[in-house]
């Protein structure tokens, strides 16, 4: 690499990491300012300073174990719900893509499902199925289903007419067309759906948890618990951890999309870089 190219590379890294780092430093500075300048000793619990959050929320072994257990449970709920939504959603979209009448008869109900505020129905599910692990997964599944079905269906349907003609010309049957043309073409859309649904599943797992005071303790239960006992350091830690988890899921699916379709489709390129 030439000296100039190396300098350019370094400048690029500077922008890629340096600029966000400056923003983070400013934000933490503001945070301290609010904690120590705006709030008095009595009201500081409203915004505890970053070091207190770190010390009490993350470094205290007992508190950390509690948080991580909650996160683990919510992560399992979110990922299982998402996985179910992916498998069933993609299958449903494939079935619907095979015949217009099937699409017409099923799709309105999916829209209805999507339009119903799932979280408002959570108490009802709890009422029916109890407040255990399975019901939490069901909530995530229902919240994540629609974007996957809609995007997959869109992908399967938007294959070029020319490509269909090519397959018709050479006597391809339905299965061949599906496996060799429609599904690969739909992959970028499927990943778009997965990314949206992954975010929703995380929300479903954490917010849905607010309704599950009985049974195992997930992230949402913890957040509510810390709030009610004014344990604001731990409350902040829990919120930060939830955000980091959401971010991790987003990056994971971005990386997955890049791996699968990045070689041939724009959507698989690095979306976090631009």
């Amino acid at each position, binding site marked *: 690499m030439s000296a100039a190219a190396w300098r350019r590379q370094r400048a690029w890294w500077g922008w890629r990491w340096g600029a966000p780092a400056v923003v983070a430093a400013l934000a933490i500075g503001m945070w301290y300012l609010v904690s120590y300048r705006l709030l008095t000793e009595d009201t500081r619990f409203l915004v505890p300073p970053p070091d207190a959050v770190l010390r009490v929320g993350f470094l205290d072994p007992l508190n950390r174990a509690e948080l991580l257990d909650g996160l683990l449970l919510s992560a399992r709920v979110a990922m299982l719900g998402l996985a179910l939504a992916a498998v069933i959603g993609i299958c449903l979209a494939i079935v619907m893509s095979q015949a217009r009448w099937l699409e017409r008869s099923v799709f309105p109900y999916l829209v209805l499902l999507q339009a119903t505020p799932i979280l408002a129905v959570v108490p009802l599910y709890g009422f029916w199925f109890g407040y255990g692990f399975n019901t939490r997964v069901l909530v995530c599944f229902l919240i994540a289903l629609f974007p996957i079905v809609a995007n997959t269906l869109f992908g399967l349907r938007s294959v070029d007419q*020319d*490509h269909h003609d090519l397959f018709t010309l*050479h006597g391809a049957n339905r299965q061949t067309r599906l496996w060799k043309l429609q599904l690969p073409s739909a992959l970028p859309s499927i990943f778009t759906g997965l990314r949206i649904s992954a975010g929703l599943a995380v929300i479903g797992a954490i917010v849905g948890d607010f309704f599950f005071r009985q049974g195992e303790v997930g992230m949402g239960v913890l957040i509510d618990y810390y709030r009610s006992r004014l344990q604001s350091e731990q409350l902040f830690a829990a919120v930060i951890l939830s955000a980091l988890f959401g971010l991790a899921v987003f990056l994971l699916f971005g990386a997955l999309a890049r791996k699968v379709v990045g070689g*041939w489709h724009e959507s698989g390129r690095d979306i976090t870089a631009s």
Partner: protein
Amino acid sequence: MTTPTAGQDIARTARPVLSLAHVGKRFPDGTDALARVSLSVAPGQFVSVVGPSGCGKSTLLRIAAGLEHPTDGSVAIPTDHIGYVFQDPTLLPWRSVQANVELVGELRGLPKEERRRRADNAIKLVGLDGFAQHRPRTLSGGMRMRVSLARSLTLQPELFLLDEPFGTLDEITRERLNDELLELFLTQRFAALFVTHSVTEAVYLSTQVVVLSARPGRVLDRFEVPFDYPRPPELRFESAFTSVAARVSTCLRGASS
């Protein structure tokens, strides 16, 4: 140059691989695309179709491929070795060049070995050896079109249907691909039906140029092109060539008005 050309010699003895008789096409919405079009193409013949935009040229080609059915007249295609080249290269972007070229054999159920052998062969024929493992997005427009040609060649087509394949390419690439297509035409001995907007391209490539009228497309006139193959690129500037092109152009202008 009125002596019969090599191409026409073959044509005289070979049976046509495509015959359209009084073909008409009316779409369900009531538009008439074609009216009483008759033409036939035999191996060794290269027939170009020119006409004003929207005159049903593409519909004609789709009928010849069996993708559409005529509402009038009859079509005989006594072969299923039909190569079809679309305006767009229609490559599958997730497949390598090699895998794209193998696609047609795959769909037709050729054994893997045979498919591979034919694909290797076709890729060499269009001059893309060394690019077999590339993805289409890394290729230029001209190279993508070569991949598309190669894909059709794996079928060892007796009838080659081309729908304005070079329309979106720059002139230099287009002329180079014209020459490559003629070379394939001479070595592979298929019958070609070629739709284009360019009179020069039509005359340069063809044994016969058919001019269609504005919609609904009817055959206005046919022009035999009396030049031997292989045709040198400079032929385009010779007076005998330009006079044929001028006659086609005049007829085409009449068709558009």
